[in-house]
């Protein structure tokens, strides 16, 4: 048995005082009485052997209880067996921005459960950060003193308060150089950007934050790495080997390009060649390719069928070609991300992203179609639009064309706009089969671009976090939407085929330990045996023994 506060064992010296008081009390004081027989008749208290045993038992109980109190004050614990695994530290931001301020402890409990599930055998410590004063809530080892990180409203990852940084360093040091410290947070982003997720690595040498921000203007994703503390660091992207130097003391940041999808891992490396073990790694949500439904009156164009098969093989389209007649388009539309109307239109308006190829003049279209003209001269208006990226339509003059009235004109001919786009639809006012486009390599590219533009899902249509008790709408694609109220403990909830992070972590953040990054089975090693705190049992025993001693004493004097 070991003690966290061995100096508290000096409390046991109280036992000497108790013993001395007992001995002094046992010394009978002398008193002269006028008439002793009165006392002889009055001596009703138990005397002799029984009384002596009771007194001795009472003294023994008091001494043992004093010993138990001193032991409890010394915070005893049974030392566990040290494992070979490294400690993993999870720092959770429980602040208001995570909408978890009122359920901080629930958040920590759920995070603990989630960590145990995702990284079994790994010893981990959870540091909860709430408001501006940090709260340390959970640890699996009583002997570990925890530090904390203070959150700053203006973006503490890039400019952490000195005290927060100091606490974080303290935490890292006391945790015996932990493998990783994660902080999840959602902070106000720069104007025009929206933060998707944040990963923060804290070690005893520095303080690194990684923000992934999304640019709605379409400039792509950026990883903003904020560093604090002293030293010169380099950030290495492991998968590509790219290195970004981040020099200077104090707080600074650097923006790193990120891929559209996949997982990227950054590692901190000192310029002196010392590679830190700590890594910031981030899992980005895989966006599946869109599901496409071809709508045609009869057999679709063979060029269209061939292009769709090619897109399926290259992974731009999900599943093989599916087709349906216009009469059933509205019924089947909900199961697909993009509809391709091949020279036809649905009898009713279908509110799904759709590519219209040579649409007929009908009222069920989201645009109007003009009178057909022969041999319209085609020239591009917007070369930078994603639909026309890498294409030159001016070299494929159509034989006939109908102007598309509505939306944004991307290519024009003599009668008017022949290619137009708007949110939710793209229309080609000419028939590719009636020109060289159908047989040229530009046709699959045009289809790929159109499907990619139309099939691009809105990012984070729902908030990254849900509160317990919050109502969330699920379903809507294959099943009617339902409003469900989230009741129960925080965690990852599987609802209607979707995983919802409830009051917990960001969906894209991968918490797999670093050893598992290469795809191997996590080397969790021997988890060892955690320390067993004994303070409460000793305190309880002391309380019980003191109560028993008092009861015996009370019975003897009453």
């Amino acid at each position, binding site marked *: 048995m070991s003690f966290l506060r061995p100096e508290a064992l000096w409390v046991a010296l109280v036992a000497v005082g108790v013993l001395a008081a007992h001995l002094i009390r046992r010394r*009978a004081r002398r008193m002269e009485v006028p008439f002793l027989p*009165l006392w002889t008749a009055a001596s009703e208290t138990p005397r002799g052997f029984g009384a002596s045993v009771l007194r001795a038992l009472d003294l023994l109980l008091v001494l043992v209880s004093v010993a138990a109190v001193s032991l409890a004050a010394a915070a005893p614990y049974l030392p566990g067996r040290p494992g070979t695994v490294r400690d993993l530290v999870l720092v959770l931001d429980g602040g208001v921005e995570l909408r978890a301020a009122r359920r901080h402890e629930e958040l920590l409990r759920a995070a603990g459960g989630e960590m145990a599930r995702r990284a079994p055998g790994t010893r981990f410590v959870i540091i909860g950060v709430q408001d501006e004063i940090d709260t340390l809530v959970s640890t699996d080892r009583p002997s570990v003193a925890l530090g904390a990180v203070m959150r700053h409203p203006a973006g503490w990852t890039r400019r952490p308060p000195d005290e927060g940084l100091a606490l974080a360093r303290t935490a890292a040091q006391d945790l015996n150089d932990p493998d990783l410290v994660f902080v999840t947070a959602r902070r106000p982003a720069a104007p025009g950007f929206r933060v998707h997720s944040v990963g923060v690595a804290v070690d005893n040498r520095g303080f690194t934050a990684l923000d992934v921000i999304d640019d709605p203007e379409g400039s792509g994703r950026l990883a903003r790495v904020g560093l604090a503390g002293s030293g010169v660091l380099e950030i290495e992207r492991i998968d590509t080997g790219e290195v970004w130097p981040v020099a200077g003391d104090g707080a600074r940041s650097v923006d790193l390009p990120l891929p559209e999808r996949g997982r990227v891992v950054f590692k901190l490396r000192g310029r002196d060649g010392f590679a830190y073990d700590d890594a910031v790694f981030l899992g980005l949500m895989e966006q599946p390719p869109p599901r496409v439904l071809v709508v045609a009156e009869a057999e679709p164009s063979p060029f269209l069928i061939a292009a769709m098969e090619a897109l399926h093989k290259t992974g731009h389209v999900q599943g093989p070609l599916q087709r349906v007649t216009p009469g059933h388009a509205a019924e089947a539309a909900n199961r697909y991300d993009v509809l391709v109307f091949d020279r036809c239109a649905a009898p009713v308006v279908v509110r799904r992203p759709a590519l219209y190829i040579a649409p007929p003049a009908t009222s069920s279209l989201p645009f109007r179609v003009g009178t057909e003209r022969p041999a319209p001269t085609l020239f591009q208006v917007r070369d930078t639009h994603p639909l026309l990226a890498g294409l030159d339509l001016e070299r494929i003059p159509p034989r006939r064309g109908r102007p598309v009235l509505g939306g944004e004109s991307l290519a024009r001919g003599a009668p008017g706009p022949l290619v137009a786009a708007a949110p939710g639809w793209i229309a080609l006012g000419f028939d590719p089969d009636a020109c060289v486009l159908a047989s040229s390599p530009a046709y699959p590219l045009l289809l790929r671009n159109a499907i990619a533009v139309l099939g691009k899902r809105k990012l984070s249509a729902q908030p990254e976090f849900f509160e317990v008790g919050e109502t969330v709408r699920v379903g809507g694609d294959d099943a009617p939407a339902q409003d469900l109220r989230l009741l129960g403990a925080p965690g990852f909830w599987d609802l209607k085929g979707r995983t919802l992070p409830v009051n917990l972590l960001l969906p894209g953040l991968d918490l797999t330990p670093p050893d598992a990054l290469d795809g191997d089975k996590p080397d969790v090693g021997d988890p060892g045996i955690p320390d067993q705190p004994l303070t409460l049992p000793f305190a309880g025993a002391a309380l019980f023994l003191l109560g028993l001693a008092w009861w015996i004493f009370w019975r003897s004097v009453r």
Partner: protein
Amino acid sequence: MIFTSREIAQLRRLEILAGKVLKGELRGEREFSRRGPGSGFREHRAYVPGDPIRMVDWNVFARMRELVIKEFDAEEALDVVLLHDRSASMRGAAALCAAKVVGALGAIALGHLDRVLWIPASGEHARHAESFTGRARVSDLLEALDGGAGGATDLLGAARQGLPRAIRGGTAFVISDFFDPAGATGVLSELLHRRYQVRVVQLEDSQRLEAPRPGRTRLVDAESGETLVLDISPATVRAYERAREARAQGVRAFCRHRGIGYLRLRADVPFQKIVRSIISRGWLTP
């Protein structure tokens, strides 16, 4: 001297008060119903042979030619017995109070020309029993009371040795705490048997009788020196109080049953109040 000068003055007033209560001016102050030598004429009776010739009323013979004997009421002093407990249990306030009460009663009795028999009940009682007569002996009585005390309580032994062998009657005061191993009934019965009007004054020194604080205590008997080691607890104290009260109630019940005057007083009560109480109860009257 057990009395201060102020207390002596108060003692004088008590004597006057007692005199008023008795309503008598002559010596003896109490008329006995038996005939005997005295100054008060009682009656004439016919002469019978054997009567002393000097008792014949010759004036009546001169007028009536009959021999009659002139009889007078016997006038004699009252025996006031003061059985004074001077044992070791009466140390302190009880001893002083008892001495003052005895002194006051003795002084009043001597002031009324009664004969006072002072019997100290202590280890040396046989040597100290003493009789006092006349006002001049008041100072002797008070001086005798000033002596030390001690020893075991033996009221019966002291009474048997101190009282005269002849049964003469009178008033007997027993001033004691009655912490007598032999009990109180023996001495009181003996006094009654000798035709005394028995008056009991039980004194209790509350300070000495107070129970010690809880804890282990070696109790030593003040008279016998016996010891008892006891763990004093609130329960023990309560039992002790009950035993003490029961003993006092036993004495009181016996006194009531035998027609004995009984007073139970705390030793810290001024002796004047005690004597006034005795006077007001008429205990000085036979």
